[in-house]
């Protein structure tokens, strides 16, 4: 029964996301099947949570079974109707053209296959153990008990986005309700509050980000480096541990990575139509960041949004983007952010909610905290969180910095470094330093961007294939001809 509810719950949201992606693709086909499924799941689940929020807060629709299914049916129904209309009247292809990863002139060696098999089996073993804990063990950690699962329970039993009924020192109700709404949704399908389902969905976010990282590398490198990227990500102890526990940081990292993933594809797109489609979807992914965690709006949305706008302007200036495409991309970005951001912003302001993660922005002071530097150093290099990842990352940046002059690696790694630098600055110069000193904040911020770091490491470590796919004009995929 749990399996059926899980498949039905995640499947329907992924289907909704899939249709939404098709509408944005129009008559193009952007991704391979694994990428499409992962992005459909991420966009679909967060979009559905956003619609639930709109329906409950602004329209008073109760979050009962009827409310959930009603909103779901209206959402998917509208998407299907639009899709049918465009297929019938605009001649769009109903199904996407099959897209494959490029075949580089590099044959996978036997020793590489052997290593992939051994490390793959070991990684599956770890995922199985972690997944078992997620589905079978009760929730344990503070934020799960107080925030993510607690709010999911409240939404389920109150049938509304209701506040936590206890006085707290932290304004947890100010967090976007996305993660908790997903838990509530899956429990609705079971007919009762279900801990296994409420916790189990986190495994799918972990799998989604892993697939996206693999795909991002696979489009630019051969199979072996791509596999290594996925293996390295899942071998990072703290990332894996967070991914198999009911915390929202891996969920956040998946959305951040998705935005940059799509943006890099947009920048590398070989045709104008493909680029337009990528930017439409990037706009939606960016605006959905607002509805993930508080830092999705304040920190990551701002930086990634700026990167997106800068990329549009640079492409326009180098005449690789027409004026019409530029206006369309900017319009999509502005309107997506407005449609998703404004209702959420209005709700927060009218409810007197704070902006910030753990600490409200309004109360944040700026002062140099020298002790934090040592703590950050220890947490980065001397604890069991990341193995030698940061040593390798900084080492490769020093040795291979000449590779950073090419798009999209320069964009990808540049944004990664910028986000990491901001993390350091926030913890060293603001009252978030306390979170670093007591080791409750800094590492969690790094989790948000660690897939970006792993991606940068692999792309820097392995030279591009002879076709030079780091060039922005080189097609990343092989598409079937119709």
């Amino acid at each position, binding site marked *: 029964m749990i399996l059926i509810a899980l498949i039905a719950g995640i499947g329907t949201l992924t289907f909704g996301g899939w249709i939404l992606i098709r509408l944005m693709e129009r008559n193009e086909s952007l991704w391979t099947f694994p990428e499409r499924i992962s992005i459909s799941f991420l966009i679909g689940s967060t979009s559905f949570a956003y619609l639930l929020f709109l329906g409950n807060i602004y329209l008073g629709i109760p979050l009962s079974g009827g409310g959930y299914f009603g909103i779901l049916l209206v959402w998917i129904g509208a998407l299907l109707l639009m899709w049918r209309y465009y297929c019938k009247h605009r001649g769009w292809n109903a199904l996407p053209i099959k897209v494959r990863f490029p075949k580089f002139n590099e044959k996978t060696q036997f020793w590489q296959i052997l290593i992939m098999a051994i490390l793959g089996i070991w990684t599956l073993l770890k995922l199985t153990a972690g997944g078992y804990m997620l589905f079978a063990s009760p929730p344990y950690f503070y934020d799960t008990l107080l925030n993510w699962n607690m709010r999911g329970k409240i939404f389920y039993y109150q049938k509304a986005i209701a506040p936590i009924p206890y006085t707290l020192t932290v304004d947890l109700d100010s967090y976007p309700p996305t993660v908790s709404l997903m838990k509530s949704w899956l429990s609705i399908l079971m007919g009762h509050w279900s801990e296994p389902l409420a916790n189990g969905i986190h495994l799918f976010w972990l799998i989604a980000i892993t697939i996206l990282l693999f795909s991002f590398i696979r489009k630019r490198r051969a199979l072996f480096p791509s596999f290594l990227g996925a293996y390295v990500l899942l071998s990072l102890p703290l990332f894996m541990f967070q991914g198999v526990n009911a915390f929202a940081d891996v969920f956040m990292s998946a959305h951040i990575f998705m935005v940059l993933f799509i943006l890099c594809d947009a920048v590398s797109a070989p045709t104008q139509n493909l680029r337009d489609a990528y930017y439409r979807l990037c706009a939606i992914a960016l605006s959905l960041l607002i509805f993930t965690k508080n830092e999705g709006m304040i920190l990551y949305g701002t930086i990634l949004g700026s990167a997106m706008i800068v990329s549009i302007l640079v492409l326009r200036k180098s005449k690789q983007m027409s004026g019409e495409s530029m206006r369309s991309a900017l319009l999509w970005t502005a309107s997506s952010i407005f449609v998703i951001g404004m209702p959420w912003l209005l709700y927060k302001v009218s409810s007197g909610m704070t902006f910030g993660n753990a600490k409200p922005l309004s109360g944040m002071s700026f002062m140099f905290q020298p002790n934090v530097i040592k703590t950050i150093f220890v947490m980065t290099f001397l604890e069991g969180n990341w193995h030698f990842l940061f*040593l*390798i990352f900084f080492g490769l940046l020093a040795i291979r910095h000449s590779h950073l002059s090419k798009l999209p690696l320069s964009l990808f790694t540049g944004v990664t470094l910028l986000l990491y630098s901001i993390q350091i600055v926030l913890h060293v110069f603001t009252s978030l330093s306390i979170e670093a000193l007591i080791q409750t904040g800094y590492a969690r911020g790094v989790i948000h961007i660690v897939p970006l770091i792993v991606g940068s490491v692999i792309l820097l470590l392995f030279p591009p294939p002879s076709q030079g796919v780091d060039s922005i004009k080189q097609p990343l995929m092989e598409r079937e001809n119709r």
Partner: protein
Amino acid sequence: MKRVSPFCAIIVWGFLVLFSWTQFASHTFAREEVTWNFLSGNIPERFELGGMSGTSEEDGLHLHAQAEEGRMIAQMRLPFAADVVTLTLGKSSKTEAMLLFGKSGSPLMKLLIAIQGSGLQGQPERIDLPMHTIDGWSAAERFGIALPRGADVRIESITFSRWNIREKFLEGWSSFWTLPDMQAYSINFLWGPLIALTPPERLKLFLYKTPVAFSVLMIGYVVIGCTIIFCASLAICKRTRAAVIVLITVLSLLWILLDLRMGIELINYAKSDYDAYLSQDKTNRKFRNYGDFYSVMEKSSEIIGSAPFVFISDDQSLNIAMRYLAYPAIELTANESGSAKYWLIYRYGAPLVHSDGSLMDGEGKLLSKKGEIIEKFGTHTFLYRAQ
């Protein structure tokens, strides 16, 4: 004749050296131990006593700081610098003492030690102190103990131990594979594999918030540093490809070793949950450091339903889990408790149920109307329903 690769030669040579060293070192340097035994009236060393009485008795050296802080100092004539000092105490009061050590003629350094006083139950209390991690210990010539006023301590023995290099290496290897229990802070950071050099440190590796051990990553960085130097020399000899292969191989092996260790830790967490919680029947389940709390809450929630309730426990750290597990039932505050139908008492030391059936706190204050215990879970743990 095929030329032997220098890389292979170095690896083989290195293993031969390491193996020989671990074998021969054990014959040359055995584990060393010096014990000051105070049982049966024995006084192994000359002590200077100040501010307290010291009597040699059958069950050890009896120190009593009656009127003021007292101290006992002796010259430490040891043939080695001890790694660990072990205090074995008999019947003693619970107190905080100071270990004193230093060079002759210099001010003594102090190390705070907590005496639990478990010797009162007839079992010796053993306190292991990893002194080799303390600055200034290796040069110390004097050793002693200071007690606060009122402290009453019996010392059965003081043992100074030193492990040889081979034993430290083996302890370090064992500690590498020593796995921690999951803690509330594990979601924020993971200690990773730690290196403890002596058995007492390894046995208590993850018991303290800050482990008395160092991260294996420090060794990793030394290995990587040596490898980089070696690879640089290869590169200078125009063997760049070999240098890159060596560096990548060393990094990969280190990474895989760490992944193996941390992966086993993750699997061990799942196994521990299965062994202690998931495979047990509901009455015997223990969930991580919560013990039987989750089982008690599960059973109580079935009875309480969504009715408001009062929760009383000596352990306030349970509140967050309690509120989550009980929801949709809401915990009432002290001001609202008069209207509560259910009271969940979890390991609350003070007797609560009055002879007439009403609930009272340890000071005799009436908490609830008359009722009855409807579910008893253990000592001082029950669910009470008011009429």
